[in-house]
């Protein structure tokens, strides 16, 4: 049986005696027998560390690890620098608690301060929080930032990731919120329909950039329309794309959120990921979650501390705007190290490589018989094609060669993705195989 209890039987007995108890039963004697389990748990016996490793390894071997990934849809296979993995494995960072005691947490606090700074740089906004669970919950929390007594409805572009829309619906299902999802048109946000949907009861408009189909939106019009209706403009953005595309700050958005997994976190079958939330100076106090601020100690040394805590649940309780307690601290640290390692040029390179590879893939697939679904839209690193064969058949064939193809969509189309990790050779191989399936 595995155990992490240091005290030996003898030491345990010594402590029992010192505390005035005869045995362990004594310690639990005050608990009514009727609620006690009174039997052994019906689970397997414990194991040694070596056996644990064997068992978990054999579980992991039942998964298929694809050597070549061409699927995105919100979770991306970007290159993770080795220094990132090294830094985020440091025991201090891994095992530390939330930095409520500033004097012994300066490293942790400063790293969050650096993270907040970098997220502001990426999105062009003024203020960032210390992160939330993921991009989808970040979008949901942004709705609560915008709602007030007179504005309770939300307009969401149908070109936003359906999983994000699902989470927003679930989050809003408790409190009176009218959610209006305006169906996408030709792979883009339907500008006319969205503008028509905005009114004096709209709290915010949410648009994704690049959108779920990979296409780049012209957000100018939406920002203006939202503001004209007195609503806030929320953009959910791909952080890698922010190295080259016009930022939410430049568009004049009120809130920029998104999924930070691309910034150094592994795919990990869905988590842990990273939800970033940034906003304007004006809306700073509406941000949920932890925030780190710079201050001085009594000797005038620059130092960092959790601040604006009176917004949070542990102080406001039922008057808090969000119940969130944690941030994804270690994931935020991961993003900080990733962005330091990439630097402005490296991030631009990752973005440009992804764009170039995706466009090459699209052209080659088109030649092989996979017509683009939205030929008039410009895309970033993902794009949608028609499929001349049932997508499942294509995927099965690709799987035999260790390739995870694009995501089959409900209407028989396929959402493809390419990043800096896909070489020309990999892409050519994929396209050849795809062509063979058609024949």
């Amino acid at each position: 049986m595995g155990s992490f209890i240091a005290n030996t039987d003898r030491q345990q007995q010594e402590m029992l005696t010192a505390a005035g108890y005869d045995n362990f039963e004594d310690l639990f004697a005050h608990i009514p027998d009727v609620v006690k389990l009174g039997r052994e748990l019906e689970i397997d016996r414990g194991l040694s560390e070596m056996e644990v490793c064997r068992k978990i390894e054999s579980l992991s071997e039942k998964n298929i690890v694809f050597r070549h990934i061409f699927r995105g849809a919100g979770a991306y296979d970007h290159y993770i620098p080795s220094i990132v993995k090294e830094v985020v494995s440091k025991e201090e960072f891994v095992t530390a608690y939330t930095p409520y005691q500033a004097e012994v947490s300066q490293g942790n606090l400063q790293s969050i301060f650096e993270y907040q700074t970098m997220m502001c740089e990426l999105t062009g906004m003024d203020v960032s929080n210390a992160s939330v669970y993921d991009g989808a919950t970040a979008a949901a929390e942004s709705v609560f930032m915008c709602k007030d007594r007179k504005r309770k409805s939300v307009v969401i572009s149908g070109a936003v990731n359906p999983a994000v829309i699902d989470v927003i619906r679930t989050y809003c299902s408790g409190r009176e919120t009218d959610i209006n999802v305006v169906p996408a048109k030709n792979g883009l946000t339907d500008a006319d329909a969205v503008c028509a949907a905005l009114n004096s009861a709209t709290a915010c408009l949410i648009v994704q950039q690049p959108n779920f189909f990979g296409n780049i939106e012209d957000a100018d019009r939406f920002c203006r329309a939202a503001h004209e209706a007195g609503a806030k403009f929320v953009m959910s953005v791909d952080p890698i794309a922010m190295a080259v595309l016009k930022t939410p700050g430049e568009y004049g958005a009120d809130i920029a959120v998104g999924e930070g997994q691309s910034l150094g976190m592994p795919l990990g079958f869905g988590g842990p990921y990273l939800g970033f939330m940034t906003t304007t100076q004006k809306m700073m106090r509406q941000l949920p979650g932890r925030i780190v601020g710079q201050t001085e100690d009594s000797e005038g040394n620059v130092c960092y501390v959790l601040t604006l805590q009176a917004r949070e649940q542990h102080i406001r309780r039922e008057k808090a705007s969000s119940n969130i307690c944690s941030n994804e601290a270690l994931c935020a640290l991961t993003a900080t190290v990733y962005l330091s390692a990439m630097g402005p040029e490296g991030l631009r390179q990752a973005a440009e490589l992804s764009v170039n590879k995706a466009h090459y893939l699209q052209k080659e697939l088109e030649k092989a018989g996979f017509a683009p679904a939205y030929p008039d839209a410009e895309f970033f690193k993902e794009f949608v094609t028609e499929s001349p064969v049932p997508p499942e058949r294509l995927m099965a064939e690709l799987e035999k060669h260790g390739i995870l193809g694009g995501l089959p969509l409900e209407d028989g189309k396929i959402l493809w993705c390419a990043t800096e990790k896909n070489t020309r050779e990999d892409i050519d191989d994929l396209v050849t195989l795809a062509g063979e399936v058609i024949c």
Partner: protein
Amino acid sequence: MNIPEELLYSRSHEWVKFADDETASVGITDYAQEELGDLVFVNLPEAGDDFAVGEVFADVESVKAVSDINCPLTGTISEVNEAIMDEPESINSDPYGAWFVKFEGISEQENLMDAAAYEKYVEEEKAKEE
């Protein structure tokens, strides 16, 4: 303990300054600001909002706590003091100058105390604490 003669006081430590029967300004007392400690932020309502006696119309934040401010009147907010939102420290340094809101259309008020009665009340509160 500073307790200006010309003001009226509520049991939850707000001061009220009547301009006439239907209009008044409201803030918190010296005792209140001392109990609350260093204030870092204040959340104010909007002009046009209606409140009744006893309702929470604002709150003040210190580093580790939030305190509700209760309404001593029934009426409509005519003006809010944006300055204290930018400089919450002024509530600590000048509690009777740092008004929170102005009311109009006042129809009701709780049983407000005069300065002498409030002074006595504060003494009793302090004694309770010890």
